């Protein structure tokens, strides 16, 4: 519900950023109305610099003007600030919560850096090595899916949860990388659970309106490479 005189929830972000996408999906899952403040790519806004002086990065959630930074911290905040809305993003049981937090951290601590290494790899050898690391990481997540989903369609069970958001935000960029590298990361035969999950995730109501099309991301990447700049992202 919007407060009198203005929207009480604002999200500072940029449409190509998978980290920003995490925050948007969480807000959508909870049915929270928010104003999206698109950052310019060339220059960080005063508001961003003031709201996240430590990292100066997106996403930043502003709730009643108070800033919350770091994408998965924002997701957890959304879950806790709107507990009655939508569905719980983290499970109720403390042990399950610990497992979900573990795998979400794994995505950020291991999988994402190995993806970054792949995009920076210069030699064929380095690319093969880096791609191998990404696939090894995804294989662990394939196994984790079996454990966390309890036979349902998402890491979060019958609906999108914390780990789905942590991993799913990268699916658009993953498709772009698959095209440019020729490597199939989520192979239907080797990772059947993740392959089906990926389709389900991208088709979800809370995701499809905000997840950019791979073609649009690829175009964005081409333009950025041409001007040799990188988008601000967490």
């Amino acid at each position: 519900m919007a407060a009198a005189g203005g929207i009480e929830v604002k999200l500072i972000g940029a449409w190509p950023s998978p980290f920003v996408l995490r925050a948007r999906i969480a807000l959508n899952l909870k049915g929270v109305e928010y104003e999206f403040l698109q950052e310019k790519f060339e220059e960080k806004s005063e508001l961003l610099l003031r709201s996240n002086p430590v990292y100066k990065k997106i996403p930043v959630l502003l709730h009643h003007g108070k800033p919350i930074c770091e994408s998965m911290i924002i997701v957890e905040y959304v879950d806790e600030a709107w507990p009655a809305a939508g569905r719980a993003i983290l499970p109720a049981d403390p042990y399950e919560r610990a497992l979900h937090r573990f795998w979400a951290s794994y995505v950020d601590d291991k999988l994402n850096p190995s993806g970054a290494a792949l995009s920076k790899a210069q030699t064929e050898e380095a690319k093969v090595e880096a791609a191998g690391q990404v696939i090894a990481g995804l294989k662990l997540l394939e196994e984790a899916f079996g454990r966390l989903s309890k036979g349902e369609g998402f890491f979060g069970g019958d609906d999108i949860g914390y780990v789905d958001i942590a991993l799913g935000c990268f699916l658009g960029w993953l498709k772009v990388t698959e095209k440019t590298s020729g490597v199939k990361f989520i192979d239907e035969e080797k990772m059947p659970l993740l392959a089906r999950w990926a389709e389900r995730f991208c088709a979800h109501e809370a995701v499809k309106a905000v997840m950019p099309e791979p073609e649009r991301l690829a175009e964005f990447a081409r333009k950025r490479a041409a001007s040799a700049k990188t988008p601000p992202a967490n």
Partner: protein
Amino acid sequence: MDPPSSLKLLGSWADSHTHRVQLALKLKGLEFEYQEEDAINPSPALLLHNPVYKKVPVLLHSDRPVVESVIILQYIDETWADNPIMPADPFERAVARFWCHFAEDKLAPAVGAVFSSSGEGQKTAVDQVHDNLKLLERELRDGAFKEKRFFGGDKIGLLDIVLGCGSYWLAVFEEVMEVKLVDPGTFPVFHAWLKDFEEQNEVKETIPAIDKLLEYARGIRQMMLSLSNGTSTTAPAAAGTTSAINVAVDGSSG
């Protein structure tokens, strides 16, 4: 003999992440069994219960493993509700989690870099530590933690545990490396908080004696210097020493 506890902690005596868990368990008044692990030779139990990272700390609760110290701390807080270590308010929780992330992501690596470098590289690392401490000092003085005794308020909370268990390395490195990291003149509020934190009974019972930490740090530094032959500004530490330093300062990977 007491009945076996349902809680068992796999840890390393000089590992700050292990101390975090030990302190949290103490603050909650929870009994637990402790098993010392050698970072270079992990036990079968450690490999079984933390196959992904193969690192301490690992908390076993009725044989179910929880890993990653900040995740363990939240697990403990959510399982045993008395003496909460997380704030109740969602915004304050987000702030605590943010600064925990900062501690792991920025501060700890900078402190570790001071220890593993020399010459120009060390000067850069010291400057990084100071830059990071400035951010914390500002937050303590004017920001989210203004006029609070601890980051958690009147009592020690999650962020105190995360920052506090590791901050003793600052004093150790100051002595071993002969650098000034926490000048009370430059960081008065942080310095005062640290002294207060270290005086708490549960903290005194958890953190090893400073002379043991000094001896440990000196031993590793010697090993590193003899390996690098003092030729590089950032010591290319061998896997063993790197993991030993990482265990000490960064602990498990998260």
